[in-house]
């Protein structure tokens, strides 16, 4: 079991109801996609936040990554909608 910091932004944050949390990562979770699948089982608020995983953007340690990226060694994983800055 590894401790992992999760951060949520914009409507992902609003739907889950928190901006960040620390979790104990189950050992069978290898990729970002695995993590998203597991998070969706944690309650209706997570299910709602991640109902369309293809629109969810992810950063590992503040770098954009695709969903198939392994999360081994990650300290912080962030989930958010497509960016709308500028």
């Amino acid at each position, binding site marked *: 079991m590894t401790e992992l910091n999760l*951060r949520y*932004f*914009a*409507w992902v*944050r609003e739907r889950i109801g928190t901006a960040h949390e620390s979790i104990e990562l189950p050992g069978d979770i290898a990729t970002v996609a695995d993590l998203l699948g597991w998070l969706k089982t944690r309650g209706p608020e997570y299910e709602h936040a991640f109902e369309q995983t293809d629109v969810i953007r992810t*950063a590992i340690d*503040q*770098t*954009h990554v695709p969903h198939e990226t392994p999360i081994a060694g990650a300290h912080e994983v*962030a989930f*958010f*909608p*497509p*960016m*709308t*800055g*500028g």
Partner: protein
Amino acid sequence: MATVRVQTEPFDVAAEVQALVSGRTDIGAVVTFTGLCRDEGGTLSALELEHYPGMAETEIIRVAAEAQQRWPLNGITAIHRYGKIMPGDAIVLVITASAHRTAAFEAAEFLMDYLKTRAPFWKKEHHADGSEGDWVEAKDADDAAAGRWREDM
């Protein structure tokens, strides 16, 4: 040679340009882009900009470095605000300086296109009638605009 800031405070375009060009005689072209909050025909009372602290700066610095590799630039300034922004107020500033105008124009457009699609900022609308607004949706047009700079195309 890039100045990158993420801040709540307004910025002073003239002062930023001055900081970039002052005392130099090798710059032939300065392009500034200022993005402002529109009131959408009076329906919007403010925009709330959320950002990912740390990553926002990192991504903008990365985009600025890429612009400097692609174009012969004398300097870049990129400032992005967060927090509550009122209609008419500025959200983002990009300045590019180069010996030649084409490089300055192209680099400024590139920076804006990449800022919009890579920098972790999100806009929430506040409605003028007091009702809760929605998060602004990302536009396919912005992805297309960023895509035109791909070097493998």
